């Protein structure tokens, strides 16, 4: 008799008590491959206003600091929604089609 194949995440005995998870562990899941277009910043036009950072639903923008004076998107997580490009007051962000 063959046992049916199992498609399971964890053994019964290995499940955490109370079926819990560690904080912030969705970072293990890269949502970047949902994207068909990606935001590309023209640093010349950027005025470091932070709108791309404030308005990103996925929290992918990182403040590069007072010397660099721009925010960098983390493409591991950016889903390509285009809010940053739309909200940029200087039109410094362009949504560019991803190469397949």
């Amino acid at each position: 008799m063959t046992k049916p194949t199992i498609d399971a995440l964890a053994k019964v005995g290995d499940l955490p008590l109370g079926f819990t998870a560690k904080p912030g562990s969705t970072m293990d899941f890269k949502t970047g491959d949902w994207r068909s277009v990606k935001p590309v910043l023209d640093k010349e036009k950027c005025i470091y206003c932070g709108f791309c950072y404030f308005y990103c639903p996925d929290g992918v923008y990182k403040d590069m600091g007072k010397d660099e004076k721009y925010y960098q998107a983390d493409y591991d997580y950016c889903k390509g929604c285009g809010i940053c490009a739309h909200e940029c007051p200087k039109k410094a962000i362009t949504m560019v089609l991803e190469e397949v």
Partner: protein
Amino acid sequence: MAKPIGMEVSLAVAEAVKLANTDVVAAYPITPQTHIVEHLSELVADGELDAAYIPVESEHSAMSSCIGSSAAGARTFTATSSQGLALMNEMIYIAPILRVPIVLAIANRALSAPINIWNDHSDIMSVRDAGWICLFAENGQEALDLTLISFRIAEDPKVSLPVSMNIDGFTLSHFIEPILIPEQAEVDKFLPPFKPNLQLDIKNPISIGLLGGPECYTESRKAADDVLWNSKPQITKAFDEFNKVFGRQYHVVETYRHEDAETIILLMGSIAETAMTAVDEMREAGQKVGVVRLRLWRPFPEEEVLAAVSKAKNLAVIDRHAVLGCSSGPVGLEVKSLLLNSNLKPNTSNYILGLGGRDVTRDDFKYIFEKAGSGQVQTRCEFVGVYE
């Protein structure tokens, strides 16, 4: 040595909750449970119990608040009956998976319709599959003791499960009985402070209550089944520890004059006292009858039940709840299925009685003993004393 005092059983349950230094009580009034939480709110109002009493707007919110408070690390209690338990149903199924050790006292009452405030076991039986530990008390002393024991079992780090402590509505909850009230120091010895297994802790955050898809739901249910079965040694351990402190030894299954009994009635709750009186009277008339009572209903104490009925020729299983469209009540189903895979083959029938507060008398039990004693097996459960 403490002297027993006359006390309403509901109040004794509340006194036990006080002695347990419970942190949070979230409750909603419903007959016949209400005296428990009324007395608890008095104890809080008088400063005798330092707890938060949350007067929630429904039983659904009562159990929801209890889940929240237990997850935050507070010793948590609530009580309900019947429709209240039915309204809690959704939460009842969630609590064991989140492993929150809530203690719930249920003054058992019939489910609507027709609306009926009196005693039977249909409320608890409707949530028997949810993963809770279920205990049934027979009398007032046991109700108080089992309330304390429930906290100990629930919060045992190897268990960490919610526990329901069942008392028959009115016929137990509203009776005044002689009850020994333990000393606080004794209770403190038996029941250590609650150290939660998991907690909504600012310093060590966790996420509780996640989505479980097809790739882990089966495992989560099996894990819940395992932990419930594995709780039995901890339950008997708590009974033993209780005996060490208080000198009252409880067992998961109790027996009365069963050793040489040819016919045994198996039941749960306060009607056992009536059944035992019937047994005494029938024994005097030379009939070999006995009683087996389940104190523990979930996890189902299989070995103890088999041991208790091993010598019986005839077995009558009593249910206080009718499973409509099915041949047996829940206890009947459980016992029959247990016997099927054992080498014991007593003549087993299932009797439904005492629904919605219908009196259960010695004569009812004598009738059942005699009918079961004839060796006749009924495939369908019999509604005892039904007028048709």
